[in-house]
């Protein structure tokens, strides 16, 4: 069903990873992604993979759930693999028809594949273990130094919060409208591409109307509670850098050191 789409979905939990400061988690994820591009050989990937495994184990998010994050990007990964496999010149391994696979091709394909998979799993762990609201709070906090040069950090974070908050609502709305039209005999699954595109009209029109209605209601509700951006605000849940965050930061640093050492020494 449409509701089951995992889109930056949060997996509720109380693990050590879940409770880390969101700012730390965001920075650590960025560093992890950068580290994947620092790595030059499979030894480095081994370290990166082990680190990811450790985080998965501590977070106690089921593996099936994490792997689901790969599904939407499966095509991209497959495409990258194929292109690398066939297009890289070098020592020929097998040759058939007009295609050839080279040793270098296999190596690069494996390399790229591992990098992509680790990249996606690493970043999906961030959204799986961090509540969307914490995530945007974290982004706002990290962007706030840029307020001085006129970056509207708070507004950006608010827009993100609202967008994230309403993804499930809109999915639910879509589900409801689809069912209502199906009850009237609409058919979204069969027919030519053109027919199927046309079948979307009975969903899209009510969906847009709903979206505008929700937006209007929300704007009204925010205004009637005197929401106005621009002034500094206080928060109900302050994010604090605790001792466990310090431990997390140290672990992250050691990971980076290992990656860098590995690259220099081998």
């Amino acid at each position: 069903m449409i509701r089951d789409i995992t889109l930056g979905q949060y997996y509720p939990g109380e693990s050590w990873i879940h409770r880390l400061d969101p700012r730390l988690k965001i920075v650590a994820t960025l560093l992890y992604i950068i580290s994947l591009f620092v790595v030059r050989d499979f030894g480095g990937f081994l370290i990166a993979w082990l680190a990811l495994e450790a985080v998965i184990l501590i977070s106690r998010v089921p593996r099936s759930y994490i792997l689901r994050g790969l599904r939407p990007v499966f095509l991209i990964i497959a495409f990258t693999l194929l292109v690398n496999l066939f297009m890289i010149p070098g020592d020929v391994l097998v040759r058939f028809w007009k295609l050839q696979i080279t040793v270098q091709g296999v190596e690069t394909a494996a390399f790229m594949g591992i990098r992509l998979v680790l990249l996606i799993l690493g970043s999906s762990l961030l959204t799986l273990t961090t509540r969307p609201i914490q995530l945007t709070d974290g982004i706002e906090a990290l962007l706030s130094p840029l307020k001085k040069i006129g970056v509207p950090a708070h507004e950006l974070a608010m827009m993100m919060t609202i967008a994230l908050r309403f993804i499930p609502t809109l999915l639910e709305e879509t589900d409801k409208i689809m069912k209502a039209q199906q009850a009237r005999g609409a058919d979204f699954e069969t027919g030519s591409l053109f027919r199927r595109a046309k079948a979307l009209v009975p969903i899209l029109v009510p969906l847009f109307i709903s979206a505008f209605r929700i937006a209007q209601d929300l704007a009204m509700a925010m205004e009637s509670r005197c929401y106005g951006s621009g002034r500094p605000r206080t928060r109900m849940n302050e994010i604090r850098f605790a001792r466990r965050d310090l431990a997390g930061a140290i672990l992250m640093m050691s990971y980076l050191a290992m990656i860098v050492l590995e690259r220099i020494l081998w």
Partner: protein
Amino acid sequence: MAIKVEHLNHIYSPGQPHEHKALEDVSFTVADGTFAGLIGHTGSGKSTLLQLLNGLLKPTSGSIFIGDADITRPGVSMLKIRRKTGLVFQYPEYQLFEETVALDVAFGPENLGLAPEEVDARVREAIALVGLDYDEVKNASPFTLSGGQKRRVAIAGVIAMKPEILILDEPTAGLNPQAHEEILDMICRIHEETKNITLLVSHNMNDIARLADQVLVLDGGRLVMDGTPEEVFARGDELERIGLARPDALRITGQLRRSGIFVEGSPLTLEEAADLIAKAVAP
């Protein structure tokens, strides 16, 4: 055509952290021509049951017979189910999408693959049945109508498919008292004219007591009562324990009795109650 439901179970998102058991071992039958009422506290599984009856959801286990056909079998034609059972969702006006009222009402019949003349005839008939003037509204945009009118158009869109079973999920939610009465009258009229099975979900016990021949009560996904309104509402204390209420007529006569005015019988409508009270206080 009758509805027969056997040992129906439904679990949302099975195997996931937010797995939810919405229906548990529900069995009942609704005979042909019955006006049935379905009541239950919010979250008791009413809407889930309605969607199962229309084939929009597949049950985890159990079977649903519409007439002789088991609609839970793989490979049954959904269009056939939809031709037999019409489902009006809660707030159905949010499904309107066409440029004109007539086109919107025609959406269902067209999907059934009917001939244009037949579609046209049905659209006229359905719009008249819901108490709107065809010539007045046919070219209007559905979005310019009032809330109550939109609701009628949306219901007409389902009625135009001429279902033998008409299922309505809280069709009067959010309407003013007058529109509320009009919509219910309309549903009654359609029931009498077409002799269909009507299954009405409502939070208003007065409406259910007044209209239904059979009352089904859900609580936490289980069917806890199934009987005539007299039988079901006689168990008022149990109903209150699961978050439901007695109809006003029963509540008032009960209170009078407790304060010493002995009113005989158990009326279901306020008119009956008034008669009985008049009899009780007459010198």
